[in-house]
Each structure stands twice: as structure tokens, then as C-alpha cells.
């Protein structure tokens, strides 16, 4: 059974399962590197505009809801923890338990997005919007630039969370069908890596936007 599954998953152009695993991992990390560079563009924008408008950035930061930001950080970190456990469980061939753990991860990810949506609704209402749509009173010059960076970075991140939720749901289904084993686990491992990257980005966004 196990060797059949392995044979089925081993592509013709790889000499053995180990070579295939190495190629898959390297490919995934190259993709993660491109994701890091994508978000780097936003971090560079942040560096640039923060140097130009230091006061506006500190006021903007103080304006954000630190409690909601902290709660979301704890939620996302916990989801990273549960996805790591799910990958271990899938590799240990405990498919049903892995699927349940992924279900918990998906709930945490959805909670993150719900808090984010609540925050966005409040910002929309008070007019803490990017660029020319900004209409907060008594704001320091350049405050609209802070909110441009805030909306761009958090929405790009939220798009990644949403995509990650889709991938995790797909993996939960495959775990439930016990498709993974100690020999074949590339899809679930890569899904986990993607989710961890989303967490990594937030680990840097949180202090820079909410605390600094």
C-alpha cells in the first residue's frame, strides 16, 4: 500500500523520492523568497515615508487600535503553531486528527480576518483612508501617507491570509482522506510553509504599524 502510494506520487523525471522532495522544497522556498521581496516593497515605502514624516507616522500608529492588533498577533501566532502540529500529524499518518487541527487553524485565520474587517469598518467610518480619501481632522502633515501604507500592507497581507485559508481547506480535505504519509507529505508541508510566511510578514507589520 505504502510503496504503491509512493510510486504513484513519484514523477517520471525524478530518480527517487528524495530528489523529488528536495526539488519541491527548494521550489517552495524560491516562491517564499519572491513573496518576501513583494512585501519588501511595502517595507521600503514605509522606511522612506517614515523618514519624511516621522511625526505623522507616530500619530498614525497611536491612532490604530493596539488591542485589536495585539489580539490578531496572538491569533495568527497560534494558528502558525496549530498548522505546524497538523503537518506533523499528517506525516505521522494521523489524517483525521491532522484535518481537525487544520480546521482549528482555519477558524483562527478566519478570526484574524474578522477582527481585521471590524478594524477596517471603523477606519472607513472615521475617514482614516489612504491618499486623497483621507479625511481625519487635526492630523499631522503626511498622516494620509501613513494610512496609505497601512491599507496597502494590511490588505495585501489579508489577501494572503484569504488565499492561505483556501489552501488549508483543500489540505484538510486531503488529510481527511489520509492521502499523506511519512513518505509523501509535500503538499501539506508546503501549505504549512506558506501559512508560516503569512505569519512572518505580520510579525514585522504589527510592531511597525501598531506600536512604533
Amino acid at each position: 500500500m505504502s510503496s504503491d502510494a509512493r510510486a504513484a506520487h513519484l514523477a517520471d523525471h525524478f530518480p527517487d523520492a528524495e530528489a523529488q522532495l528536495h526539488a519541491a522544497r527548494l521550489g517552495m522556498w524560491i516562491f517564499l523568497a519572491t513573496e518576501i521581496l513583494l512585501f519588501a516593497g511595502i517595507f521600503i515605502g514605509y522606511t522612506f515615508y517614515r523618514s519624511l514624516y516621522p511625526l505623522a507616522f507616530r500619530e498614525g500608529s497611536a491612532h490604530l487600535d493596539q488591542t485589536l492588533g495585539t489580539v490578531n498577533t496572538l491569533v495568527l501566532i497560534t494558528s502558525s503553531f496549530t498548522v505546524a502540529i497538523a503537518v506533523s500529524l499528517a506525516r505521522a499518518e494521523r489524517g483525521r486528527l491532522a484535518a481537525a487541527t487544520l480546521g482549528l487553524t482555519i477558524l483562527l485565520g478566519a478570526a484574524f480576518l474578522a477582527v481585521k474587517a471590524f478594524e477596517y469598518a471603523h477606519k472607513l467610518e472615521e475617514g482614516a483612508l489612504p491618499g486623497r480619501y483621507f479625511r481625519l481632522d487635526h492630523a499631522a502633515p503626511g498622516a494620509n501617507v501613513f494610512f496609505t501604507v497601512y491599507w496597502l500592507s494590511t490588505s495585501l497581507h489579508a489577501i494572503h491570509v484569504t488565499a492561505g485559508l483556501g489552501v488549508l481547506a483543500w489540505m484538510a480535505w486531503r488529510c481527511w482522506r489520509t492521502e499523506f504519509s511519512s513518505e509523501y507529505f509535500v503538499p501539506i508541508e508546503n501549505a504549512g510553509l506558506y501559512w508560516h510566511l503569512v505569519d512572518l510578514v505580520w510579525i514585522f507589520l504589527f510592531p511597525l504599524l501598531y506600536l512604533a
Partner: protein
Amino acid sequence: MTPHSSSLKHYVVSWLSLLLLTALTVAAASLPHGPWSIPIALAIATAKAALVLFVFMHLLEHPPAVRLVLATSLVFVGLMILFVQLDVTRRFPLARPTDPGHVTDDSFRAAFDD
């Protein structure tokens, strides 16, 4: 699989450390703001990122080429941020829009056009 129970322990310890470091960075942010505020926040974030990379993402168990890919991307991110920072802090003062008011597309363009 054998590594499961030992890696579970590592996961739990890392998770608790991540929660603790989050509490630490929030506590540090409540101190009066100074020149060290951002470096401290970034140092804590880097420690958290290291936990995620080395424990949750098993960076050291993956093929060495993976570390090369990650290091290359981080070096280039560092270079980009360094040079942008050098440019913006050493720029000729008149080239900086010091008071853009509420920057509109027009005023922003005007600040850079001449």
C-alpha cells in the same frame, strides 16, 4: 513517526515564547518613545521570526540550497532598505516636501515637479 513527540514539545515551547515576546514588545511600546523604540521593536520581531523559521518551518532540516535562497532574498531586502534610508536621510533639504498638508495628487506632483 518517531520525531512527533519531541517536535511537539519544541512547538509548544516556541509558541509560548512567541506569546511572551508579543507581550514584551507591547510592553516596550508603552515606554516613552525614543530613538531606541524602533530598533527594540525590530529586534523582538526578528527573534520571533527566527523561532518561526527554525522551529515551525524546520529551516535546518531542509536542503542547504533553501538557506541560500532565503539568505539571498534577505540580503537584497537589507540592501534596498539601507540605500533608501541613506538616500532619504542625506537628501538635499529643498528636495523634501516638508509640509505637504493633506497630500493630494496635485500638491504631491507640484512638490516634485520643479
